[in-house]
């Protein structure tokens, strides 16, 4: 029997959390979290059943278009999502695995998303990946971290090399890389790609893109109708459900919640005092933080770069040739949240932040300087200046590890946020 222990643990945690929320919290509250956990339960159950049936497991990077895996009868698992889901759903988080990785020589300052998986892989009962598929982007941690899996764990790893230029030359190059990836996967899995299944998967994603665009339109309302927890959860949805039906379902159901709340002029925060824009990541190690922002501070996180698609659905899907579908995914995945801002020139990052801060009527920005992301921490000061000059809003920077509560504790983060609010109100 092949191991998928971390997925089993997540499934149990999802069930328990959902049970707890359903039993203890009124039905009209924490709707986004509830929808997520319901989707997660289905998604994990399906994955575990498929693994038990003997289907191959494809490990993939969050910045990879997982729609491609639907060409095969296989189970996709987003590697980066697992440690952060552990962080969010388990009291003890992923810290144990970070320590194991550190003990093996993995640097403390490298990204906890890969570090957590390295720690898990050094233990028994890891996930028995048949193959790993990744891009060469968007950061050094991706490049260095995955060499552990390919070299030390000897898991066949296929890399699609993503160019730094996000232009027609770059998109074309990456499209060919993804086409080669499909043929390589086909060899590893000994399966012929089924492009009709790919079409269906892109269709789910297309709907998800449309729903998220609608959700974001509604999030512009004052008060913001969607709770702040949508940001960390949305990141998990995009990565863990990528290319799967649950992604479409999640956004569809959240959209209904948003519509209903806008109709009732109901906000996520008890009293919306400050609209905060998060130019970078959310906090994963404690999901109560988002609730604290809404309920205690009155400062909903109205937008972040992870929950905004900077591209349109793939058009004319029904008539597209496989190559055209793959090229469409190549373009989209080079414009994925974080990839677009991290794996290219910084002006894209600044322009997106300015655009979103304007669109969502932000009063301030909060930048999570995640210790793993050197490419973004290099330009924090420039971001601060750009937001001040072009939007006229101040920016708070919090140095932390988004998946490890020991670097900067929840209490310290809350204190910083409260001090910042004093300067705003």
């Amino acid at each position, binding site marked *: 029997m092949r191991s998928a222990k971390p997925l089993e643990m997540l499934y149990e945690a999802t069930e328990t959390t959902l049970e707890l929320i359903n039993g203890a919290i009124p039905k009209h509250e924490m709707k986004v979290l509830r929808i997520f956990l319901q989707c997660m339960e289905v998604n994990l159950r399906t994955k575990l059943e498929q693994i038990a049936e003997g289907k191959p497991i494809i490990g993939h990077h969050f910045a990879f278009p997982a729609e491609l895996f639907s060409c095969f009868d296989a189970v996709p698992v987003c590697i980066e999502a697992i440690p952060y889901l552990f962080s969010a759903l388990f009291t003890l988080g992923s810290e144990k695995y970070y320590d194991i990785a550190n003990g*093996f*020589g*993995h*640097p403390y*300052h*490298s*990204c906890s998303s890969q570090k957590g998986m390295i720690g898990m892989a050094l233990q028994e009962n890891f996930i028995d990946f048949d193959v790993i598929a990744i891009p*060469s982007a968007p*950061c*050094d*941690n991706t*490049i*260095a*971290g*995955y*060499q*552990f899996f*390919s*070299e*030390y764990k000897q898991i066949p790893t296929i*890399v699609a*090399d993503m*160019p*730094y*230029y996000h232009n027609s030359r*770059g998109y074309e*190059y990456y499209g*060919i*890389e993804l086409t080669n990836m499909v043929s390589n996967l086909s060899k590893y899995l000994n399966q012929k790609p089924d492009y009709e299944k790919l079409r269906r998967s892109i269709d789910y994603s297309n709907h998800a893109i449309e729903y998220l665009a609608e959700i974001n339109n509604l999030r512009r309302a004052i008060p913001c109708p969607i709770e702040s927890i949508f940001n960390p959860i949305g990141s998990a949805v995009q990565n863990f459900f990528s290319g799967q039906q649950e992604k479409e379902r999640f956004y569809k159901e959240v959209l209904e919640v948003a519509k209903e709340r806008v109709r009732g002029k109901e906000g996520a925060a008890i009293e919306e005092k400050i609209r905060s824009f998060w130019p970078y990541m959310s906090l994963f190690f404690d999901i109560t933080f988002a609730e604290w922002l809404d309920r205690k501070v009155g400062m909903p996180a109205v937008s972040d770069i992870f929950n905004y698609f900077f591209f349109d659905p793939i058009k004319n899907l029904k008539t597209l040739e496989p190559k055209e579908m793959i090229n469409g995914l190549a373009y989209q995945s080079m414009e994925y949240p974080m990839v677009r801002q991290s794996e290219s*020139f*910084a*002006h894209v990052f*600044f322009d997106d932040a300015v655009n979103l801060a304007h669109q969502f009527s932000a009063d301030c920005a909060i930048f999570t*300087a995640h*210790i*793993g*992301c*050197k*490419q973004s*921490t*290099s*330009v*924090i*000061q*420039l971001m601060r*200046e*750009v937001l001040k000059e072009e939007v006229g809003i101040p920016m708070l920077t919090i*140095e932390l590890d988004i998946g490890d509560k020991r670097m900067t504790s929840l209490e310290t983060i809350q204190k910083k946020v409260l001090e910042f609010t004093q300067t705003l109100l």
Partner: protein
Amino acid sequence: MIRTDFMNFSATLTNPHLINWIAEKNKVIGYYCSSIPEEIIHAAGILPYRIRGTGNDNYILADSILSQFNCSFIKSTLNLMMGGKYDFLSGLVLANTCDHVRRIYDIFEQKINKNTKTPINLFFLSLPHVFNERGWNWVRQEIRAFQGELEKKFKIQIDEEKIIEANEVYKKNQKLMERIKEFRILDKPKLSGVDFLKINVANGSVRKEYANDQLLNLVEYYEHDFTPSNKNVRARLMILGSSIDNPGFVEIIEHHGAIVVADLLCTSERWGLVEKLWKNEKIDKTDPYFPIIQRIYADCFCPRMMNGHSLRMDLVNQKIKHDRIDGIIVQRLEFCDLHGGENMLVQHEIEEELNIPVLSIDREYLLGDTGRLRTRVEAFLERLERQ
């Protein structure tokens, strides 16, 4: 000039050759990594200068932009640039070689150039992270585009002949460095690790024709005039990891009687002295860009090449045997994720599979913790002697 004076060019950012070069109204272009096509800059009649942090002693200016999680080497270089110490540059070439380096381009484009009357010419190359034929062709296009940008910005013409000439100069330089390296691995080495690094650093700060004359002098000096000391060498060491341009770090390692006889660093022996890492027989070897792509891409020892780890380990293994290595120092600059991941693997593979002792060091670019470092090296040497 005394023959060994060339080494002292490593002690300061400028040197007599560079000063004369600029005085004669010639241009200098700075570059960060060994993956930059220096030969094209050379062919343009410009001096390619490898950026370093020499002489920096604080991060006050750089800290106004970069964060506490950034590499101290990059901070040092930015600090020097913001303090005007690199004002002799007419251009700066960067690539996506690591997350810290590539953001220097953005910092100049978005901030420094906007706030100065004399903005620096910026150039950028997108380099692949995988060895394959498509990557080779992409690099060729990038070099051609870079050449075009140079021609446009400096209103010059770089014809094929000049590139072939530059390749010849660089080939000669490589041969001379290989010859000098031989003095390092003798039973009684004539060249310390410190001096070898100094030569490499100096070599990156002058025009290569000038460097070749100096290297030839050094070859003659070590061949005929230099007598090595009779002192016993406690251990023959190899250094791996992040780039080093500060001989002071190697001095600490050699302080207790060990000698660094080999390294695989992008600022030192990696430069053209290794067997080619990635080979592809289909590539057109008559192309004038062939040797350049070979050097900056196929011969890239940096862990940013995602499918290159086993090739890199083969090379390490080969050098351990060839240079008769007793122990290895695997070091990296704090916050370097690329070498962080690589060093973790290398340490396990060397110790567990090759049974060679390894000392792993994390360091800051500014050498502030030398006492602790000396103690660790001394303990490592004692460990080697007990074996």
